[in-house]
């Protein structure tokens, strides 16, 4: 942390008053953002009947761990899902970084003859898409990815939005002189990219890595489409499955066919909250850890100057 502190030592530091104001703004807003999480956690430890009678309350009259009991009954399924999510997130993020940064770097180069074409080529996919069914067909019939973890990794690997952000980072943060000096030293394009550009672009890369990590961690839709084998269902998909099914059954409570029995076998509100805690808890706890590298990456990038 010391390096960060010295690094940001300014002659014209923010005046103490403004510093307090800034702290207040950021602090209050982040409190407003964290609050629901605390709330979810409290709710997940609330007694189900109490929740139904009193509604959401910060100080429930009766506490309970039934919700977690219910989920841990599923046993190894939960652990396996953690494994799948972590694998998909790590491998996916690594792949995305490579694909995205290479593409973005190339189209950020003014000397690249086809940069307009490829920029447009990427951008166009942000607006137009073929819809669900055609995508499903390509993924299953052409690439044969159904029931494979790669169906969770590949569809999210590239993202034109990230490419556009990354391209902007490259073109604003990297002086042309560096590329020229690399060329003079006789380095090839790939050599320049990996040895000179990547260290300078770390803030951008860290941002993309972060987004990509979150994207993979939160993804459930690809699992809905492509995964039927319960042993490779990721965490969020498990959570969303329960959420969607609750929603669906609640909407059909008056349907005589569905009957009361089905509703009863559904997890309760508190279990859903517990699922949220279990599914997001790890990444929230891991986030400061990520962030340390994020910040370190940033300072390294800055020191390189």
């Amino acid at each position: 942390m010391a390096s960060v502190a010295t690094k940001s030592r300014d002659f014209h530091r923010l005046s103490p008053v403004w510093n307090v104001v800034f702290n207040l703004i950021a602090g209050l807003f982040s409190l407003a953002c964290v609050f629901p999480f605390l709330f979810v956690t409290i709710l997940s430890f609330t007694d189900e009947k109490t929740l139904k009678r009193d509604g959401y309350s910060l100080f429930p009259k009766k506490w309970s761990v039934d919700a977690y009991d219910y989920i841990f009954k599923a046993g190894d399924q939960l652990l396996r899902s953690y494994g799948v999510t972590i694998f998909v997130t790590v491998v996916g993020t690594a792949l995305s970084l490579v694909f995205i940064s290479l593409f973005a770097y190339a189209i950020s180069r003014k000397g690249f003859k086809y940069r307009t074409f490829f920029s447009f080529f990427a951008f166009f996919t942000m607006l137009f898409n073929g819809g669900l069914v055609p995508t499903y067909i390509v993924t299953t019939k052409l690439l044969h990815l159904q029931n494979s973890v790669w169906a969770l990794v590949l569809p999210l690997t590239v993202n034109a939005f990230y490419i556009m952000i990354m391209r902007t980072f490259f073109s604003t943060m990297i002086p042309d002189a560096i590329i020229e000096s690399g060329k003079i030293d006789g380095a090839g394009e790939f050599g320049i990219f990996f040895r000179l550009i990547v260290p300078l672009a770390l803030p951008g890369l860290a941002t993309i890595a972060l987004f990509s990590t979150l994207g993979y961690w939160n993804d459930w839709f690809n699992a809905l489409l492509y995964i039927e084998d319960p042993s490779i269902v990721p965490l969020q998909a498990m959570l969303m499955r329960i959420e969607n099914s609750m929603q669906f059954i609640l909407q059909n409570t008056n349907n005589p066919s569905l009957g009361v029995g089905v509703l009863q076998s559904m997890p309760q509100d508190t279990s859903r909250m517990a699922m949220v805690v279990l599914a997001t808890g790890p990444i929230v706890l891991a986030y400061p850890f990520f962030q340390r590298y994020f910040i370190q990456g940033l300072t390294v990038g800055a020191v390189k100057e």
Partner: protein
Amino acid sequence: MSSTRKKLSLGLTSVLAVSLVLSACGSNNASKNTESGNAGGNGAPVELSWYTIGTPQKDVDKVMQEVSKYTKDKLGVTVKMTMIDWGDYNQKMQVLTASGASMDIMFTASWAFDYVQNARKGAFAPIDDLLDKYGQGIKQVLDPAFLEGSKVDGKNYGVPANKELPAQEVWRFNKNILDENKLSMDGVRSLESLEPLLKTIKQNDPNIIPLQVDKTFMPYTPYDYLIEKFPLAVKLDDKDYKVVNILETPEMKQGLETMHKYYAAGYLPTEAATLESSTDIQATGQWFADKATTQPFANNVWSTSYGYPVVSTPQSDALIYNLSVMGSMQAISANSKHKEKAMEFLNLLNTDPVLRNMVDSGIEGTHFKKIDATHMENLPESKNYDMPTFSLGNVLLTYLNPGDPDNKWEEFKKYNDAGKPAILLGFNFDPSKVSSEIAAVQNAKEAFWAPLMTGTVDPDQYLPKAIEKMKAAGLDKIMAEAQSQLDAWRAANNK
């Protein structure tokens, strides 16, 4: 170099890349195909792939192995069941069907992977001939109304599960509160007849909700709807089969006025119009009356599941609607390569108690044990195989649980025999010619529907508005189309 040429060359490069990808995948494809081709040919058992609704259970594969052993001997088929969770079923089946995935049997209903809609779009194979050839057992077991009511444009596309057939609306009462206030449900039938009871409850205990309604509530009117929750309907005793806008009928107007009166008097939940379901209030028991659809022994089921006694009294006759016969069905995919075998399997599923109970409760000795010829008891392992019974074929074949009355299924049969067909049984409106009008009317309708039905807004003011908005969105055109389809159906069926 000209820019067109540049574009052209780039186009060529990408075409090349695509064809590379395609050819790589194509070869893969070919090898797969021959494999599966061999498996079918050599007299080896046919594997039926069966998609059904419900939370995926851990032991499905294990149970299906046992099922396959049984069906291999009897029919020469094995079964692979894939369960798709409730909330995902519609979307997943939509994608699977639209992409032409190979499936054999799939669950369908009026409320999940819409039966009529998808039958018309060609998702299911017509089964009339198959039923005659391989499904005689099904025809014997089912009340004819099931197959009659599930005809789409004159053809059957699914095997309905044998279960309660007519639908009857009842008023339910929380018995403890009924008794505490010394009230009786005798003489209660219409919405209006509830009033004195609700008034008493409101006076005696302000913490209890006198009449629990949520956004799905609709006052009962003696009409048969053309599409679920869509305002077009025909009066149950109308000899002319005239299609009307339900909001313009005197019965509905009266119902809505009463609801609004109740709302103003505080008999209904304040936020009824956005209340998704009544489950919260049911769990706490803070309600006095509500509306539900009944079936034999429903009071017992409700009482055990809520944990307090519930009683009920009818508010309508028991009639067989299209919706009630389409509550749970199994259809054969139009893409299935084993349609005959699939029908043989469905026939066995609906007639053979051993198979039906194995599919429903799992492996005997592992998931359940039999007590006598008709009763069973769940074993602890059944938590790994907890299936929604109603969705898997003939319910009347399933073994009874310890708490069930011995005459349960006889009562179901009696109840089914007593049901009379509603006026539109067997007629299914085809919306494809007016689908853009329906989309517009649907939006206009939804803005007013729940607030009106739950009495939240004053019908004197909002009913004319709603009618006008729906007319502007094209309701009349839909109505005319519906009328002409209905007239054609009447002519064809001598109604």
